[in-house]
């Protein structure tokens, strides 16, 4: 088992190395160079050259890469070409916002997904089941930025029951301690600020949750159906246990195992969804940061974005694999 885990961890290193080379190359293959984007239509050629020199952009690409890797090992992710702020600082600033959004999106996604999954399974092949499936399918198919826009117009512009964007009302300044507004506002002792932060959280979290909700719902349903057919459930029923006890104590517990492993993998997908969602709600997290970096050809930020997503994905996959080792003895003994 220990060997398996160690081997699994070691595989991560060459994977990330390969990702770093590929992403480094791809980022620089996007047409248009940052010097032109930064200096503008009237930039003099001499200024462009000077800028490139200063940013190391005139070096051969492999030299740029080696220099980049050197810096990364020193904990230096470079400096944004656009804002000239160290990428590391921005990362620390934006990460909490994204974690906050993803956390609530996951909560909503899991709760709604599991509950509707159970209901659909228990009402298999009825109108309820079909409706749930249909909604899930729609959820998968709708582009998230479009859904965001529809929600903004319906709930914020027309009904005006929630704010359309931002993390908190514009005239509130939060004293940053943790970077999590829901925590920081409470630490300030301002319940009104906290309420504002919660209200701003609703739409983004709901929209983002749709990236995971359908999968969770469908998997819960399938898994529930499978377990419901199992012999021990029939035994439990035969013993005369009440329906509630059969469903929640015996079926659900067993059915949720695969769901939990899938949730781990979904976090990677949530990050992807966060890019579009954050942008649509002007949420100052990782996603909107990366999104802006793409149009500005901000290489250091883009590079960090790709690596960050790759690391999350690779690490999540690794954790899921390792958890299998605990759950499934067959893997452990291979």
């Amino acid at each position, binding site marked *: 088992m220990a060997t398996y885990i160690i081997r699994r961890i070691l595989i991560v290193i060459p994977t990330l190395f390969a990702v770093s080379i590929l992403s480094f190359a791809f980022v620089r293959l996007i047409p248009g160079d940052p010097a*032109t984007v930064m200096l503008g*239509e009237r930039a*003099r050629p001499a200024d462009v050259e000077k800028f490139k020199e200063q940013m190391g952009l005139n070096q051969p690409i492999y030299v740029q890469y080696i220099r980049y890797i050197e810096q990364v090992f020193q904990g230096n992710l470079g400096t944004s070409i656009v804002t000239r702020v160290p990428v590391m600082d921005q990362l620390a600033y934006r990460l909490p916002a994204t974690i906050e959004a993803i956390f609530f999106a996951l909560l909503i996604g899991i709760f709604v997904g599991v509950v509707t999954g159970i209901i659909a399974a228990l009402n298999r092949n009825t109108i309820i089941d079909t409706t749930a499936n249909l909604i899930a399918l729609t959820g998968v198919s709708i582009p998230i930025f479009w859904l965001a826009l529809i929600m903004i*117009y319906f709930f*914020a512009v027309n009904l005006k029951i929630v704010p359309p*964007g931002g993390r908190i009302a514009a005239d509130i300044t939060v004293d940053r301690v943790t970077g999590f507004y829901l925590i920081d506002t409470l630490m300030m002792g301002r319940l009104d600020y906290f309420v504002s932060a919660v209200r701003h959280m609703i739409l983004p979290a709901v929209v983002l949750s749709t990236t995971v909700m359908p999968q969770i719902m469908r998997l819960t349903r399938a898994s529930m159906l499978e377990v419901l057919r199992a012999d021990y459930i029939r035994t439990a029923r035969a013993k005369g246990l009440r329906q509630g006890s059969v469903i929640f104590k015996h079926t659900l517990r067993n059915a949720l195992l695969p769901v939990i492993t899938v949730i781990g993998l979904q976090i990677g997908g949530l990050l992807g969804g966060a890019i579009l969602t954050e942008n649509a709600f002007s949420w100052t997290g990782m996603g909107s940061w990366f*999104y*802006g970096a793409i149009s500005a050809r901000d290489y250091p930020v883009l590079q960090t974005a790709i690596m960050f997503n790759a690391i999350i994905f690779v690490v999540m996959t690794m954790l899921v694999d390792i958890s299998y080792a605990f759950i499934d003895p067959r893997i452990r003994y291979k």
Partner: protein
Amino acid sequence: MFSKKTVVTRRKFLTLAGVSAAAGLAAACAPAAQRPAAAPTTAPAAPAAEQTLIIGRGGDSVALDPAIVTDGESARVCTAIYDTLVVLEGASTKPVPWLAESWTTEDSKVWDFKLRAGVKFHDGEPLTAQAVKWNFDRWQNPDNPFRYPSQKYEYWDTELSTLVDSTEVLDDLTFRITLKEATVLILPKLALFNFAIASPKAVEAQGESYATQAGTPVGTGRFKFESWVPNDKITVVRNDDWWGGKVTLPYTQMPKLNKIIWRSIADNNTRFAEFQAGTLDQADIAQTDLVTLEGNPNYVFTVTPSLGVGYIAFNQAKPPFDKLEVRKAWAHAVNWDALIETFYGKYAQRASCFQPPAILGHNPNIKAYEYNPDLAKELLAKAGLPDGFETDFWYIPVIRGYFPDSKALSEAMAADLAKVGIRLNLKTEDWGAYLSDRKDGKFPVWALGWGSDNGDPDNFIGYHFLWNDGKTPNVEDSYNNPKLQELLRKGQVVADPVEREKIYQEAEQIVHDDVARIPVAWPATVAVDPVYVKGRQQWVFRDQYENFYIEK
């Protein structure tokens, strides 16, 4: 002043995919008669309620140190916090006193500026000639201890370094600038937001982090910096000690707003939605979205001609565009009036020459190329191309006021050109690549535009046609007319405005006769305010935060 207008046009437009609309972008060269209705100095005392103006924009400021920034989003905040020695009047581009109460010069070479007495920086330090000189020294001297390698003094380097020779303090309130050559260009240039005066004490104390996201900008302006949440919002509060509230100039008054918040909202759709939801009082809105608010009683439109032009340009190094007849044929083959009607609506005016009327040197005698396909065919035949020809045509991939829908307009233009035998392959590419490929001379014909930085013709027709290196034609268009070069160079040094106007009018005529560019449209600037945001004036080159107030 050029503040936002400037930079939005020039740099920020590169990254912003929306036509900057509302929010102080007033703009418009209103006729002289239309002086800023002297924003009633007698206006009712600031309403009791807290007046907060929330402005939505596409991106965050880079830094709030005007000397080192060039982008529009930094400019628009800087203009609220800082004051310059001179400002442009508002409705016109005439330089008027600001921090400098008056100035004198005998030979246009040595200029003495008398500073306003009793002006204080937000940190309580007094504004003195020494403080002004301290700022000039920092801009001018590369070895100044308060400059850092990460900082670029681009505006000083491009705008003033070639003009200013030395500066000196004559007494506490008198500051002298000695120029290298006699010129009046110094005045509008001093009005650039980049040459606003910062508190020496604050810059010295904060070092490299001065006015960055980690620092505090300190000026003498109408608003004091309060806070900056990076990529989220910047908040300023009214400076109740502002000198302008205590003097009676027709264009100064104490702002009625207590607070301004600029929110960065990258997505155009989201920003527009927030504007409609009422969580933004002003916002930069794409022109395509603006149209949907027309006729809505909850919004007020202010449409004013701006200082820009959208044009078609030829690379004369690429045949057949070396032939004047071919370029002329192109100009006459297209029904430009119909295109403008269709693709700009009321937001633009057919350009008869390169510079719009508000720019010095605009030539009212030039008639726009008339629509005459028969003449076009004749010209082509004369050029030895009776059957026409085929060429790539490049249209811009982004939305700009000067080309709100470049693709559609190009398609319509192509249809007209096809009738005389000019067949276009429409092409475009990523904006950054587009700009550099055009510069490198890779395009035979392309669409592009310009917005004035400061209202000066040297920054308009001069910017486009003066050779970059002074010796050889620019690679982008290979346009070679020595007479034009001579005129444009003369325009940079001649001080007399009347003579100067003649020079540029002659230059305009040459550009027109050579068909070096086909000016298509002079776009208008559109500002939309909710009805409860009042006070907007028709100003060209100046922010007007002191004018706005909220009345719900």
